[in-house]
């Protein structure tokens, strides 16, 4: 993040001192002690806060994908009843009541959109990206899905069938991308780190194993 939060706990000299609340004093005490002991840094905390605010949601969906990749029995349950299989991992409520998992394969590519509004499985995928709510995406994805995919840098073999699903207040989707090659022996945690938000909407690919982040 280029912009630092203005509200971190530096009390600069030009601010008049006001006594902190009890809990504020405790958190400042903890942070100052831990920094002094070299156990944490201001920047590390900043980075985590920003990652949490932006990325935790997608990580839930990524866990579902990683489990589907590594546990065939779980994959079957996810195919049969997405809602319950996802609830097994502790993700329920909050607009994920009815979730259908769409499995990509060598022959089929799934993507979803909310043409009428911005229905989105928040619990699984976090904050919807701005483009998801944009009129061009919502209108073009149904009529010209391949063009829209190309805009996202996703080109598919012409033989691959593209399926576009429309979410509603009652029905949400999550795309289960194909497990990338070269991930034999990966733990679920390692696999989940490869899953991007867009790959679960169908507008992007998963990361390649070994590719460095960013």
């Amino acid at each position, binding site marked *: 993040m280029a912009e630092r939060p203005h509200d971190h706990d530096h009390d600069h000299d030009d601010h008049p001192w006001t006594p902190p609340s009890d809990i504020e004093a405790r958190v*400042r005490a903890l942070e100052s002690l*831990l920094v002094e002991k070299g156990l944490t840094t201001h920047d590390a905390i900043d980075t985590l806060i920003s990652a949490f605010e932006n990325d935790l949601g997608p990580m839930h969906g990524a866990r579902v994908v990683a489990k589907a990749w590594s546990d065939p029995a779980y994959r079957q349950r996810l195919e049969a009843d997405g809602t319950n299989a996802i609830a097994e991992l502790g993700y329920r409520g909050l607009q994920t009541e009815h979730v259908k998992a769409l499995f990509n394969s060598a022959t089929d590519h799934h993507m979803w959109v909310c043409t009428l509004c911005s229905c989105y499985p928040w619990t699984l995928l976090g904050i919807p990206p701005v483009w998801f709510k944009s009129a061009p995406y919502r209108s073009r994805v149904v009529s010209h899905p391949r063009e829209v995919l190309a805009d996202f840098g996703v080109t598919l073999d012409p033989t691959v069938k593209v399926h576009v699903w429309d979410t509603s207040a009652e029905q949400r989707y999550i795309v289960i991308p194909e497990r990338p090659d070269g991930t034999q022996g990966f733990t679920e945690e390692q696999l989940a780190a490869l899953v991007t938000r867009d790959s679960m909407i169908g507008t992007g690919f998963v990361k390649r194993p070994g590719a460095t982040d960013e």
Partner: protein
Amino acid sequence: MSNDSRATIPTMDGVVAYPRKNGEPVFDAPWQSRAFGMVVNLHTQGAYPWDEFKQRLIQHVAQGDRAAACAAAPAANPGYYDQWVAAFCDLLIDKHLISPDEMDQRVNDFKTGVRQQVY
């Protein structure tokens, strides 16, 4: 490694699920986000397994008990991150990463203005 923070934010489910609004994680005050960041960062540095913190937070949510040095002035309605801070403080003391005495002293320093800056 340390830059790949996206993969390292652990999940919290059930009674200790992170507070969210419309699915987005929310912090009601800056101290809550600092407390969040410290707990996750020390975990990723290997100070404790995530489950150890999580179990402690569950205990705090269930019983509201805490070590003396970690006891905040009793809040009428301790919120999620109040309990989070208390659980964290307990854990640090148990792991001998901080001592109750230095914690008491430092809290007091901040409350009285003897110390005003975190860094």
